[in-house]
């Protein structure tokens, strides 16, 4: 409504960024990893990701329609949730799992708590943990370069051979199974979006340059994991090699750069963000080493998500000129 006078408190600094532009940047920064997944796992990777994104947008529209809320699907936030959810699934994920996960993420985790900006957990990650309801299907990681075509909606048993991910191999003591270079460039098995550390880092740099995210959470997260891994290098391994393998395997890069930095579910102060990232790092290392699952990135981010309220309280900035 341009004819109305906008009255608002200072500071009167205008910035072109809107939810839509921010979310568009996130989508752009995720694209290289998706293309790489398409090369490694076949074009079905795109089918899974697109299916998640489309169903997320659909469920967002549906809930907002049913609850008589303003329809905000055009802000692309549901599409980002869907894309991240797809990135967290193996390329063999059956179609109904994508739809169920999207419904859980959008309806229960996001809209039930009031929609964008009001959810206390990352919807995509919560949905991924929900999808552990089907343990066989969510851990049916195909071997790298076992490509599935995009038109294959249901995956045959023979194609869904579960291959051990690098983290599972490392847990099992097979340290030589993958080289750090394979991990860094992404010539390994795993979820769709997590394999190539290099492309995820490039996406992260793009987000940093566009000022969509700040460096605090990823650096604190990755730094803590690296530091703690130094303390627990298995015998007969170079420290640098082991740390690099820990950093590049599993969903750590995807989680640290794209999931933990979600605006809604991370602290707002720099100190809070450092604390949040470090907490995620400690939990990830602990779960990887002692937990029941070989990978702990989703769980640690979700746990820290639920602690954000406390982090905000202890890192509240001092009022200028006021008491401590």
């Amino acid at each position, binding site marked *: 409504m341009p004819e109305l006078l906008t009255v608002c408190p200072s500071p009167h600094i205008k910035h072109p960024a809107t939810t839509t532009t921010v979310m568009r940047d996130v989508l752009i920064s995720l694209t290289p990893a998706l293309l790489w997944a398409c090369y490694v796992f076949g074009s079905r990777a795109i089918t899974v990701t697109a299916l998640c994104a489309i169903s997320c947008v659909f469920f967002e529209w549906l809930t907002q329609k049913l609850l008589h809320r303003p329809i905000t699907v055009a802000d692309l936030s549901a599409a980002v949730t869907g894309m991240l959810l797809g990135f967290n699934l193996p390329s063999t994920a059956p179609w109904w799992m994508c739809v169920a996960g999207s419904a859980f993420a959008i309806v229960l985790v996001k809209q039930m708590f009031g929609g964008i900006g009001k959810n206390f957990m990352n919807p995509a990650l919560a949905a991924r943990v929900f999808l*552990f*309801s089907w343990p066989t299907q969510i851990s049916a990681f195909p071997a790298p370069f076992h490509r599935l075509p995009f038109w294959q909606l249901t995956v045959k048993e023979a194609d869904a051979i579960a291959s051990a991910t690098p983290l599972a191999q490392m847990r099992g003591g097979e340290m030589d199974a993958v080289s750090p270079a394979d991990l860094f460039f992404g010539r390994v098995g795993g979820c769709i979006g997590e394999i190539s550390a290099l492309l995820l880092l490039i996406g992260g740099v793009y987000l940093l340059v566009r000022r969509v995210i700040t460096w605090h959470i990823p650096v604190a997260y990755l730094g803590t994991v690296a530091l703690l891994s130094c303390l627990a290098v298995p015998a007969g391994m170079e420290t640098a090699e082991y740390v690099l393998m820990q950093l590049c395997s599993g969903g750590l890069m995807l989680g640290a750069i794209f999931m933990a930095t979600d605006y809604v579910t991370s602290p707002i102060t720099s100190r809070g963000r450092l604390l949040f990232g470090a907490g995620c790092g400690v939990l990830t290392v602990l779960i990887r080493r002692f937990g029941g699952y070989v990978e702990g990135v989703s769980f640690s981010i979700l746990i820290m998500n639920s602690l954000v309220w406390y982090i905000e309280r202890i890192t509240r900035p001092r009022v200028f000129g006021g008491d401590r």
Partner: protein
Amino acid sequence: MSTKYSFGKQIREGLFENNPVLVQLLGMCPTLAVTTSITNALGMGLAATAVLICSNFLISLLRKFIPKQVRIAAYIVIISGFVTAIELLMKAYFYDLYGSLGLFIPLIVVNCIILARAEAFASRNPVIPSIMDGVAMGLGFTFALVLLGAVRELLGAGTLFGFAVLGSRYQPALLFIQPPGAFLTLGLLIAAVQKIRNVMKDKKKAAKQNAQKKSENAGEEEQA
């Protein structure tokens, strides 16, 4: 007495308007823990109902005799006596159910619904209404448990009462029979019940306002 206590109203209160689980949020522990299947939920609900009816009856009978200072202890002794009886009966006649409910049968002793009804109703009302209150609240508890158990068993195992109803192609979502599923389902059920209550309240209000308007209009017409 017939004007003060109405069995129909008590039942309506217990089942819906003042449901011990879905509205008063009492007895959360068995509600969340044993509702992995309808059979378990029904067994738990009926066992608690039996205890509730008996304890309400006896406590109401003894309400003038129990000294105020030790009433809670007295209630607990009475309740635990009935729970022990029920536990032995279940062990004798429903051994499978007894096995799957396990520790939660003796834990009926500390179920807050039973103690709450003893304190809030049976200790200050005559015997017959107290028994009726036990029936109503017990059925409300059972109703909520069965509802929760049905949803969880259907989604989490694809069965109802152990019979496969969703077909072999349905892939059960394990989450719903695990603890998080209990919290999620209960939360959504409570939200749904709250919504229905609000809608009903609004309707009642609107009806009242309409009636008032009508009577006012009628009054105006008469004056005219």
